[in-house]
């Protein structure tokens, strides 16, 4: 038991430590970094910005966490986010009452419904046809942005709808809506996986698919569910991105968000090999990525170089995880290569 606890602590300790270090760097560079001020009943400040800008990545990463826990991966989430924005904006722009709240609700529901369909499609390829997840979702990753452009007719569709704009840029009870939505989805995911049996069954499928099958787990349904959920989360993220700018950019909305999300999951300690997952870890990972993106310009390095730091983060995380791989290796090596003990007598 103590070793289990220390393992959990170990997995979350490093990303948390890294996050804290980043925050400290920021404070040194900008002493006012932690200050949060109230203006017109809204909270502003660097920390709030990090949370708000990190919301889409967190959303996508939540879905990705569950997919990765089943030994899968979903590369298409960025494209799905773009499609969600495209569908919503096109629907609002095409409506007779462009600024009505009802229009926004209809548009967003429609967009999310499309995302669920796309998730069903991914899930079908993976769980029914049995295509490797990375390849199955590559299809939609490639075609998805084309589909988004098909929806927007290749234009950057701008809309003027206050209700829609609130999702990405609005405030409720002093907090940005984006933060509330992202945390709400995090909460719902936590309840959905830890209060129902979904989390345990997902982990069972990810750890030992054959044993899970023989124990009667419907792994096909489980796998299908997580891809739908991932697409749904990506859809909300896409709406948020489109709402923030009041425009659907089929080409650039959610570009590379799948990679950031995977990174967040990996930093959060969920293994790409599937199995146990940690939503808290994913939260920390997403915050880390966003804080990194904020920190770099703050300390006077061109913002674009954050790729470099992400690369370093990936490498460091991989190397931290590799003692496990090496431990596994050294066991087999011990079996095969230990010198003969009671030897050549």
């Amino acid at each position: 038991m103590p070793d289990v606890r220390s393992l959990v602590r170990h997995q979350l300790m490093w990303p948390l430590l890294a996050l804290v270090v980043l925050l400290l760097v920021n404070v040194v560079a900008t002493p006012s970094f932690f200050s949060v001020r109230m203006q017109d009943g809204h909270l502003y400040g660097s920390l709030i910005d990090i949370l708000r800008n990190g919301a889409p990545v967190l959303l996508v990463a939540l879905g990705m966490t569950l997919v990765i826990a089943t030994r899968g991966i979903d590369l298409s989430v960025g494209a799905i986010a773009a499609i969600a924005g495209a569908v919503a904006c096109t629907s609002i722009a095409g409506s007779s009452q462009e600024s009505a709240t009802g229009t926004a609700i209809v548009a967003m529901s429609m967009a999310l419904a499309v995302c669920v369909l796309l998730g069903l499609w991914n899930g079908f390829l993976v769980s029914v046809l049995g295509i490797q997840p990375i390849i199955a979702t590559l299809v939609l990753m490639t075609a998805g942005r084309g589909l988004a452009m098909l929806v927007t007719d290749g234009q950057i569709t701008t809309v003027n709808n206050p209700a829609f704009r609130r999702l990405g840029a609005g405030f409720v009870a002093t907090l940005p809506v984006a933060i509330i939505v992202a945390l709400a989805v995090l909460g719902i995911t936590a309840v959905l996986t830890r209060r129902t049996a979904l989390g345990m069954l997902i982990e069972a499928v990810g750890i030992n698919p054959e044993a899970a099958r023989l124990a009667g787990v419907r792994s096909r349904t489980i796998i299908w569910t997580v891809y739908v959920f991932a697409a749904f989360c990506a859809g909300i993220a896409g709406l948020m991105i489109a709402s923030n700018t009041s425009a659907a950019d089929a080409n650039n909305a959610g570009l590379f968000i799948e990679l950031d999300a995977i990174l967040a999951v990996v930093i959060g300690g969920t293994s790409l090999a599937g199995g146990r997952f940690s939503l808290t870890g994913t939260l920390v990972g997403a915050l880390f990525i966003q804080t990194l993106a904020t920190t770099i310009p703050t300390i006077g390095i061109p913002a674009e170089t954050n790729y470099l730091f992400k690369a370093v983060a990936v490498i460091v995380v991989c190397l931290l995880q590799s003692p496990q791989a090496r431990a596994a290796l050294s066991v087999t090596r011990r079996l095969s290569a230990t010198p003969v003990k009671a030897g050549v007598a």
Partner: protein
Amino acid sequence: MSAVTVGSTSWVDRVKGYSPPQRFVPVIATFVLFVSMFGAGAVRYEGFASPQVLVNLLVDNAFLIVLAVGMTFVILTGGIDLSVGSVVALSTMIAASTLRAGWPPVLSMVTVLAVGTLLGLLMGLVIHYFQIQPFIATLAGMFLARGLCYLISVESIPIRDGMFSSLSSSTITLPGDVYITYTAVIALVVVGIAAWVLHMTRFGRTVYAVGGSEASALLMGLRVARVKVGVYAISGFCSALAGLLFSLYMLSGYSLHAVGMELDAIAAVVIGGTLLTGGRGLVVGSLLGVLVLGAIQTFISFDGTLSSWWTKISIGVLLLVFVVMQRFFSRRQS
């Protein structure tokens, strides 16, 4: 249709003795697809059927061909390389910035190739010795290369070097007044060398063996480590070379060059009939895959009424068709 058979058998002859014809079915399918696309274009649009249009497919996609060749090596071992697009961008940046700094063009090129190969080598070492999944290791490589680009410059850097410009603009005239660029010739040479290495050397055959079954390859006493690391170095080299070709094509270095090009390369390899799980596929298939992608683009630009996004959608659909085909192919195998 007789042209199809003749075209494919000449390749079959090259590599004959290794495998029965069934192996070539996916490649032949790609070839038929390409020919029928071209045929359809010829019927629909005036001027489509000219040899120059055909050669332009090579000219305009020379860098992608080279990229796909490197990717073929990696995928044949059952791996994947997501870093290639970024390495192309990095290569254009290194070339442009060193040339601006007054380096001799040849030194600049050698530097580009060395950096690309080194990056690939590093990724291969990490993948093999730390047992990190190729996907995540090359993802790191992708970020790293992109980040290095921005470290060099955030702005686009034009290339004004005389040797680069002349290489970029000079052409070779083929019989029938068809022009081909040096870049296209280089791409074809790379395809030829790659095919030779894959089929005629122990390294190449070990690539296939590792893709077929890594455990078996180990038990057979083959140098699995060398091959697994080597294919990423090759892919890195090809990416750098593709980056040079791309900088000849664009005559500039820019951090946002070749965004998402790794997807095109992977798509070309898959459409070319290479099994993503490794062990099966031909470089020629990847060449054909690139030509199919190019033909789609040509098709759309000739049409004029079709919008550009149909390119992505049709690539996605083709990818789907080939992936599902592969799935049923491998299910029948097992």
